[in-house]
């Protein structure tokens, strides 16, 4: 090929018509592409016009942000003073003022302990160890920190725990205790031994078939009658038992999904290597299955987190009940909306972030199984 041959240079493409690109093109394409679409756009704008301005006016423009009693609030706007005054209660419940650092410390420990789990730089092996450590050791530390009674910390009765603290305690304990139980149940359900399978299926279907509220009623009203005379549990512990049993059934179904996704060849290969049942499960099947169902586990955790609000009905003072209680405070009547909006915002922040985390995780884990 000689260098002197004439290069064929095509005429550069014409730019697209100005009304099909840029902002105008986008609007035409996405909002006004057909008569129906135009109508829908107008409807949506009208809806937004109905909803947004009053909310903005109430929540921000006309709202009162500082003060220390109800007189400080302008009528017509939100009174965020209500939240400000009760904030400590919403977070800690009746936890004594001077001891609240213990709650903060417990939370900080969790945040710092769990942070490496979300870092890419940390190796997977370390993450697993850290995760297991958190699951096992952290609850013990948290329990002694919160309850006290040793290391010179004064005892804080569980009846004084409340607010977001109690919400997180119930959700956290329900989760960590339900996970091992759920795994066992899932294994039992997939077992080839008919008696064990029947027991597990019955257990799982029973707890999944009844509403959590009846479970809580049962744990608060019936459980005491099941125990021998003179033996009784703390009210919180009873609720925790109920929540754990309930949650473990849901967890079992999630884990079962993971177990079913593992090809049979894996089990057969393990058997060929001479591994027994527990080694097959513990070393081959479960590590793969659990990795698959992490998003599912996060999703049940979100559901549990929202469901903890039901303990209000058996008289535990979680975030929901603290807010509800504050709205009946005679000095602060008439601020239900502010209270509920605040509580909703807190729950929303937790759940939204968790669900996004789980979606991201799902995408990341999914790639590994594409062929």
């Amino acid at each position: 090929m000689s260098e002197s041959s004439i290069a064929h240079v095509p005429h550069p493409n014409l730019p697209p018509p100005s009304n099909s690109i840029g902002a105008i093109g986008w609007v035409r394409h996405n909002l006004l592409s057909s008569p129906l679409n135009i109508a829908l756009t107008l409807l949506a704008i009208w809806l937004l016009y109905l909803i947004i301005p009053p909310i903005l006016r109430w929540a921000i423009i006309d709202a009162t942000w500082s003060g220390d009693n109800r007189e400080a609030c302008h009528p017509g706007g939100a009174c965020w003073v209500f939240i400000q005054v009760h904030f400590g209660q919403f977070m800690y419940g009746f936890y004594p003022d001077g001891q609240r650092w213990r709650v903060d410390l417990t939370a900080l420990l969790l945040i710092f302990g769990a942070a490496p789990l979300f870092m890419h730089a940390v190796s997977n092996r370390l993450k697993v160890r850290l995760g297991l450590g958190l699951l096992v050791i952290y609850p013990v530390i948290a329990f002694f920190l919160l309850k006290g009674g040793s290391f010179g910390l004064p005892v804080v009765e569980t009846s004084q725990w409340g607010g977001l603290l109690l919400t997180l305690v119930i959700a956290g304990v329900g989760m960590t205790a339900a996970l091992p139980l759920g795994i066992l149940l899932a294994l039992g359900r997939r077992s080839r031994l008919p008696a064990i399978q029947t027991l597990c299926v019955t257990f799982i279907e029973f707890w999944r078939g009844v509403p959590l509220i009846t479970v809580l009623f049962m744990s608060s009203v019936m459980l005491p009658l099941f125990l021998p005379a003179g033996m009784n549990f703390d009210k919180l512990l009873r609720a925790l038992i109920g929540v754990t049993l309930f949650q473990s059934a849901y967890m079992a179904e999630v884990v079962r999904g993971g177990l079913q996704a593992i090809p049979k060849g894996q089990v057969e290969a393990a058997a060929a290597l001479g591994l027994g049942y527990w080694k097959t499960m513990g070393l081959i099947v479960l590590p793969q299955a659990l990795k698959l169902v992490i998003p599912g586990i996060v999703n049940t955790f979100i559901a549990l987190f929202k469901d903890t609000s039901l303990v209000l009905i058996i008289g535990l003072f979680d975030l929901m009940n603290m807010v509800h209680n504050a709205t009946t405070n005679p000095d602060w009547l008439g601020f239900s909306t502010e209270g509920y909006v605040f509580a909703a915002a807190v729950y929303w922040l937790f759940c939204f972030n968790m669900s996004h985390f789980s979606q991201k995780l799902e995408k990341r884990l999914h790639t590994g199984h594409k062929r």
Partner: protein
Amino acid sequence: MAEHAPAPVKPPFWNDPQVRAIAFQVIALVVTVAFGLYIFHNTQLNLRRLGIASGFDFLSSPSGFDIIQTLIPYSPTSNYGQVFWVALLNTLLVSALGIVLATLLGFIVGIARLSKNWLVAKLALIYIETFRNIPLLLQIFFWYFAVLRAVPAPRQSLSLGDAVFLNIRGLYMPAPQFQPGFGWVLVALAIAIGLVWWLKRWAWQRQMATGQAFPILRTSLALLLGLPLVVFWLAGSPLHWQLPELRGFNFQGGWVVIPEMASLLLALSVYTATFIAEIVRSGIQAVSHGQTEASLSLGLNSSLTLRLVVLPQALRVIIPPLTNQYLNLTKNSSLAAAIGYPDLVAAFAGTTLNQTGQAIECIAITMAVYLTISLLISLGMNWYNRRVALVER
């Protein structure tokens, strides 16, 4: 020469998988039964020690309290057994209405989520992300204590043509009162339904034979509405409307939707619809685009494509998780207890339990009801799954 392999040593019996399997199961059963007996024994002892009555005799003793909403005749002289039925029907009512509303809303939002209109799709997304991540109980409180408390008092009711009234006590609507002769209208309706069924079969056969379509939808509608209306007119309009009117403290007469039910219903359907919307979206997305293209290339128009190609396949994916949501909604309706709607948990596991002190019996009955409902639904689900399962080569 060839060495004989040593005769296989019989493993000790505790290593025999079959023996082990049996042993494990026996142990599991014994432990379960022992645990059950232990609890039963404790309960018996406790009940006797504390002198608490037990058994189901209380169901036939008079209740002595009133209930705000009863679908069957009930008065304080009725017994606890009737309280149970009243409460159960209230649960079923709110669940059934909730399922209808949530499905409607969920399908609309789910389809809106896939809309080509950016604004509509985003609005649907915001709706889903907001209401899905807030606890249901909080939403019930919000509707009940914040929204429905803002409507006016009975004397300042909002009214629609002096027939429908909205106030803090509820939404009052005219109640139909059937006069003698209305039975003929029902008969006419039954006949119309029969005719439509026959028509459908005939049209199908004709289309199979000749390829000619018959406007079945329009004809059926005309039959279903027209025939009963004509009979209604012939029978001399045997239907009166009882209008609600303000007497004393409250509106009397007519049908009323109490705010307890309204807020429960709103919260249940708004919350569940977010989940249904996501199910619908993923169901529709699960149908591969090739199906749509193939259908269009066969000459079907877009509405027929949706009806005959996309939806039947999407429904296969949608229905199982959808049923799960229906089950959840039914179980979640038990949150009625928090705002005083007399459902099974509030009126039976709550008030009755409290008045009789028979905690075990009341909770056991309540749990048994929910279990039965969920077992029935899962049986139905299994049947459906078997019916629609893809028959693969």
